[in-house]
């Protein structure tokens, strides 16, 4: 006999064990080895309850409902012997029972997260001041658990929700989710090589302008597709491409510009967009470090033909691994989708078939007419999709993104205060005119007159548990993987080399507390003063 899902009359013990009263209850488990089963208390009135209460509407029942409007109290759960059951009163549907069990899991998940994530005190010198990290609460974990209970796994309801939230935030038409920011860059770039773009497509040997002071994932798609990266020097203190040098770097072989908004600081979008329009160049914005930054009031990631976002834990929001490609161009969106989904021409969602109504009547390549469109491949693609569990986390993170961005800006301002007394020794970062960066980090270049070197300072900070990072690859052209690869340096990379040798950054992530920043200030002051005395 199946017990779970039945509504039974059973004596309920009073909480002080002074007695009991027979009440209806929903059985939510099968009896264990001792014959005990879990039941949830049902009342007809708004009895005292500190947890979730579900109304038992007529749709909840699999047969005759209880004679009175009733409420199920999820916090009034007991383990009672099945032998205590007086009689069976009704039964609920499997769908409702699943909803009840899911609610119980969600409540337990919130309790678990509250306990696990209770704030730990920051102990200066003993606790780590991370440069980045996940910032989340029970919402993200509940979403992830909910997606796990769905067990849909591939793109599903949370993917739709996450993509829509990104589209709303950026005010952009098309958002495609992928499994990392690097994959997003690869897909955005690869889409531009499609033969469906005709003469506009990027071809092997074409040149694409970027910078060497950045992360490899902006450059590698250029090389992986057989094109030639052109490295242009950057300006300090914006750490973005030098516009005068960019103008000089453009040749008849130039077909695109692929640039990151360095550490959240937008590059000069007016100038770059104008040059791209003048020379008919593709523009991809690597927005991985700048999700939430604006330029002249408009979000970065909405200026280029395509843009990318990363959801790696160091970034503005996280899904663990994860990324997205954004565009207002429907054709580019379809190309990105095809490259992401094995190169498949068919755009039916997972689990769907023949939504276009032409699955068996079209002709492609030299395949026979009517060959199943679901297995027609129009691009040399990959499989780089996001899972629904990742998207569930992302959907929750999107609720926090505006606050995260504000906190990053506040932390940046605090660093400006911290470094203000020492600005004779450091080049402090500056936002590109017209921009409002949601700073990925606080980037500093040590001046030549400073009584310490970059390496001495970062060694000291890290020894005292304050994490620092260099500007990623420093000078990409000097990295072992790139030394012998195709590439052209436009004029020189003097500032890039300077960054490689003298620049580092501190985190601005929203998990930083004022105590952490005060500690950083203290350590910095102490070390600089000691260094100055020695010098």
């Amino acid at each position, binding site marked *: 006999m199946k017990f779970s899902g039945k509504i039974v009359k059973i004596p309920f013990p009073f909480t002080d064990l002074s007695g009991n009263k027979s009440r209806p209850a929903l059985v939510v488990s099968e009896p264990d080895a001792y014959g005990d089963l879990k039941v949830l208390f049902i009342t007809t009135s708004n009895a005292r309850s500190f947890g979730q209460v579900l109304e038992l509407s007529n749709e909840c029942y699999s047969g005759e409902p209880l004679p009175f409007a009733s409420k199920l109290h999820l916090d009034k759960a007991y383990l009672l012997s099945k032998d205590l059951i007086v009689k069976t009163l009704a039964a609920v549907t499997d769908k409702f029972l699943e909803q009840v069990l899911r609610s119980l899991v969600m409540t337990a998940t919130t309790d678990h997260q509250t306990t696990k994530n209770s704030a730990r005190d920051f102990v200066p010198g003993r606790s780590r001041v991370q440069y980045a990290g996940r910032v989340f609460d029970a919402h993200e974990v509940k979403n992830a658990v909910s997606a796990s209970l769905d067990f*849909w796994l591939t793109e599903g309801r949370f993917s739709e929700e996450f993509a829509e939230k990104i589209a709303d935030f950026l005010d952009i038409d098309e958002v495609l989710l992928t499994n990392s920011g690097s994959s997003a860059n690869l897909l955005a770039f690869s889409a531009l090589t499609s033969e469906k773009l005709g003469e506009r497509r990027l071809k092997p040997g074409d040149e694409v302008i970027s910078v060497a002071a950045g992360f490899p994932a902006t450059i590698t798609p250029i090389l992986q597709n057989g094109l030639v990266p052109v490295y242009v020097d950057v300006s300090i203190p914006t750490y973005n491409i030098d516009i005068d040098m960019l103008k000089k770097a453009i040749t008849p072989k130039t077909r695109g510009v692929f640039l990151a908004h360095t550490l959240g600081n937008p590059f000069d979008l007016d100038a770059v967009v104008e040059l791209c329009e003048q020379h008919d160049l593709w523009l991809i914005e690597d927005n991985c470090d700048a999700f939430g930054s604006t330029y002249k009031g408009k979000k970065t990631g909405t200026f280029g033909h395509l843009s990318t976002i990363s959801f790696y834990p160091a970034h503005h929001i996280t899904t663990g691994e994860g990324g997205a490609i954004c565009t207002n161009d*429907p054709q580019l969106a379809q190309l990105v989708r095809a490259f992401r989904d094995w190169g498949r021409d068919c*755009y039916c969602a997972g689990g769907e078939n023949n939504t276009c*109504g032409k*699955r068996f009547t079209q002709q492609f390549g030299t395949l026979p007419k009517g060959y199943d469109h679901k297995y027609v491949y129009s691009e040399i693609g990959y499989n780089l999709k996001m899972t629904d569990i990742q998207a569930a986390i992302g959907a929750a993170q999107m609720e926090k993104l505006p606050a995260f961005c504000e906190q990053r800006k506040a932390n940046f301002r605090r660093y400006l205060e911290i470094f203000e007394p020492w600005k004779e020794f450091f080049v402090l970062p500056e936002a590109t005119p017209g921009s409002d960066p949601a700073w990925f980090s606080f980037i500093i270049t040590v001046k030549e007159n400073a009584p310490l070197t970059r390496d001495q300072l970062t060694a000291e900070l890290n020894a005292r548990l304050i994490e620092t990072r260099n500007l990623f690859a420093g000078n990409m052209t000097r990295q072992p993987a790139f030394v012998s690869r195709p590439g052209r340096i436009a004029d020189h990379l003097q500032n890039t080399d300077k960054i490689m040798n003298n620049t580092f950054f501190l985190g601005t992530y929203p998990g930083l507390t004022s105590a952490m920043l005060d500690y950083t200030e203290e350590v910095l002051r102490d070390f600089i003063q000691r260094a100055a005395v020695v010098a």
Partner: protein
Amino acid sequence: MAMVKKVSATVAEVIIRESGSVYTLVLKPHGRSVRYAAGQFLHLALADYDPSQPWPESRCFSMQSAPDEEVIRLTYAVKGGFTGHMAQKLSVGSDVWLKLPYGDLFTREHSRESTVFIAGGTGVTPFLSLFAHPRFATYRSPKLFLGLRSAAHDFYADELERAVQLNPDFLVTRCFQNQTGFIDSEQVLRAGLAQSAYFISGPPEMIFYFKDFLVKRGVEPDRILTDDWE
């Protein structure tokens, strides 16, 4: 083509024609504006879409509104259980779920010189979205052959009049079955030039007939574009 999206929409207007056998729905999508191209179609579901479940039972309908309009208009004839249910259930204020856009009727490469449009009955609806779009003004001497059961079935006279205003070279030929019979296929053939595209939309038998006729009379299959579903 824009990526397929699922959106809910509210019925803003219901136009009932021909004693309740043909309906035009005006739908107002919720949330961000939806993007589609002229000639595309959508899936319409009456049941509430639960994102944790597969897409519910739905049917395909051509969008007759221009892509830049805030509302989506579509027309259906009551022909079976689903459309019968639509006629009973949908009134102003009802909510439906849409999945769109699909199809590539006018996004496929084609000549805009003396383009010939052949439509039967409500099959004209996918053409209407093009006729209402500013892009239609770039077609040179387009011609529409519209087969209708009778003058009483000429539901889209206003839309076609506006199309003529948009493109004064637009020539509309109506063929009423109860007066002049079916569309004259020889006249259709003569309406096009050597490079002209022929768009056909309507009942499957009509599409098959004209496609077969045009191919037999030397029109390359690439120039014949149809709005038909399996």
